């Protein structure tokens, strides 16, 4: 049959001068890079929709229980929040530099940038742990021995009361809704932290591979796409910070 000759012909043609990292079903490396990048953007779109459900819940309950949300947000320390914002933005910068180094095939620069990103990411999680621990100590974990003491009687919580002396005690039925705030706080920052942990794990893998010279041969798709992911996680935090920490500041 004519098919068999065509196969032989096609096979011969298909394997001329491909870079080793080009998958066989792509015509050109540019097509492969394009397709993978596009897929990453689509994946980030699904992530937006995923977080979108939580943001919707947040907006509804914040509208309904505004006083409770304000009072509960005063329990968060703006210092830690700002520090974390700074850490993340810096890590986005080092990540972007990493992609740049990979494109220019600077191996040591890439490894350095990835390590810095890794450390900054861990720093973020460290700060988050300090914050979570404080909530635990004050019985602000929803569902587990939750206490509204700080909200029905602000004076019982001198640390926060000194910072926000104008906060009035909340009536019991409003104070109970602070639990919703803390649930959303933990769900949103927890989901964000989970993305950070996944990102840091991938970073560790990438550091090892980068030292072996994997991303500095012209095939930067993986670094590039991971960069997109990292920036996305960063941007989620940029939304979370004002929504959770800065409710009463406008």
């Amino acid at each position, binding site marked *: 049959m004519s098919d068999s000759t065509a196969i032989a012909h096609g096979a011969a043609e298909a394997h001329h001068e491909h870079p080793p990292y080009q998958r066989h079903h792509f015509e050109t490396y540019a097509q492969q890079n394009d397709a993978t990048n596009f897929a990453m953007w689509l994946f980030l779109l699904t992530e937006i929709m995923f977080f979108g459900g939580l943001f*919707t819940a947040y907006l509804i309950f914040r509208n309904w229980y505004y006083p409770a949300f304000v009072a509960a947000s005063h329990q968060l320390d703006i210092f830690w929040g700002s520090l974390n914002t700074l850490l993340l933005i810096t890590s986005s910068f080092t990540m972007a530099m990493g992609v740049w180094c990979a494109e220019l095939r600077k191996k040591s620069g890439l490894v350095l940038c990835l390590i810095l990103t890794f450390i900054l990411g861990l720093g973020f999680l460290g700060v988050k742990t300090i914050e979570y621990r404080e909530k635990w100590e004050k019985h602000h974990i929803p569902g587990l021995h939750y206490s509204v003491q700080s909200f029905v009687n602000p004076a019982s919580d001198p640390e926060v009361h000194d910072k926000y002396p104008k906060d009035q005690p909340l009536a019991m039925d409003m104070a109970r809704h602070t639990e919703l705030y803390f*649930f959303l706080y933990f*769900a949103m920052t927890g989901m964000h932290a989970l993305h950070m942990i996944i990102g840091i794990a991938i970073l560790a893998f990438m550091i090892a591979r980068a030292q072996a010279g994997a991303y500095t041969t012209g095939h930067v798709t993986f670094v590039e796409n991971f960069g997109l992911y990292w920036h996305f996680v960063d941007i989620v935090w940029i939304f979370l910070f004002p929504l959770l920490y800065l409710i009463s500041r406008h």
Partner: protein
Amino acid sequence: MSDEVTLVKLPDQSTAKLPKVSYLNKENGLLSWLLTGDHKRIAMLYLISISFFFFVGGSLAGLIRLELLTPQSDLMATDTYNKVFSMHGIIMVFFFLVPSVPATIGNFFIPMMIGAKDLALPKINLLSWYLYMAAGILALYTMASGGVDTGWTFTTPLSTHYVNTHVLTTGMAVFIAGFSSIFTGLNFIVTIHKMRAPGMTWFRLPLFVWAHYAASILMVLGTPVLAIAIVLVALERTVGIGVFDPTKGGDPLLFQHLFWFYSHPAVYIMILPGMGVISEVISTFSRKRVFGYTAVAFSSVAIAVFGFFVWAHHMFIMGISNYAVLIFSLLTMLVAVPSAIKIFNWTFTLYKGSITFETPMLYAFGFMGLFTIGGLTGVFLGTAGTDIHLTETYFIVAHFHFVMVGGMLMAFLSGLHFWWPKMTGRMYPEKISQLAAVVTFIGFNFTFFPQFILGTLGMPRRYASYPPEFQILNVFSTAGASILGVGYLLPVLYLTWSLKYGEIAGNNPWQATGLEWQVQSPPLTENFPETPIMDHEAYDYEWLERQQEKEVASVG
């Protein structure tokens, strides 16, 4: 259905042979299947798995109909009945209907239709099958260990506060299955954007591809919202976080908003790929370009867009505001328009076409009739006034079974028969499969038409017992279900038979125009011996004739 009128052109059976090398025999052994990146093999894996789940879900449906044969709850206890219909819904929706056409026929043919060697992300494609299997096994495990009785909708506060069945594991299964569906959709979008052959412009794509593109948008944007809704249900159940709990200030309706934000578009995820199949089949068996190609292409996208803005019509009686009811009712009417555009355009395609009645076409006719009834009764339900009377009755059960079973399942079977020769290289036996198509149609109407009447008489859904005056119609429905069961068993038998004994199909038994029909059946692993160049419009039957003349000339 006379013997003479057929367009089937098979090679001379005394000399014809299957191609020596194809995707089926390029590599051998179980591992070569389980670790494959080939979209065609993954499609076959999916085909086997979804058929399995279809028969699990179908057996549960059989149990439901048997229970409803008599007014009392006698075959099973009422709470067992609740579990049976819940698992029927969950398995049919998440493990059959959502992946049915896209993961099998779509997976197999989208790359071939656009002239590509594979989907853009073969490993993600394989991952999606493994996720599907993991989810499926988890769902079966749940079923074996006691099941869930919330209905497939997991409605709060029932699912979070009142039932003590396996909500968490079932929810997890649906969550994982959702990611399998996201990856399929994502892969299709990237492939359709980035992998088209030279000359394959957007408006030369077969309408099958357009329909899948629209369905993929829904998968990618809708499914993550279902995922977060399920996570919240799980947290509400385990930790008691309060988002869906009114005693803590939460709102159970929020769950329904999130759930239906996915699950309404999900019905379009289920039906759009089926509509894609019908476009191909109607065109091929009436030898005409699909009438109003552009309108049909855009109507798919319009369904995807409108589909996102009608979810609250599932909640008309749930206490949403009257203004919301008004607006969502209006938007629901709007989404009927693009579906009607498709039906009309297919009808115009038939007009003055050279129609033949092979099995895929019979199923396609079944689809057009049943989907139209299903769609129009949907307009009854979208009208707020009638919805208050009809919702939560058998009318709604009949409505969505007309769309899902009468529509989607007919389309799936139509597509399966249509592309079977390409997938396996062999023809299915025509006569018995025509019989199966007719039996399915008759059985279907017997099963579900009485349920419209039951619904208008006021029989509520989801109860194991009912007043005795409804029995006659229920007996009709159960009798119909047994006919329907035969209609579904037949294809399994003769399609399996045809794998070994079917006639050799040759490249293009239907004289169809798609790129997938211009190569050998079953295809090579890399689909095309060399990258095809698309130099004609879709459904150009004159181009096909010229091609065949050229071939005859060169052989002569």
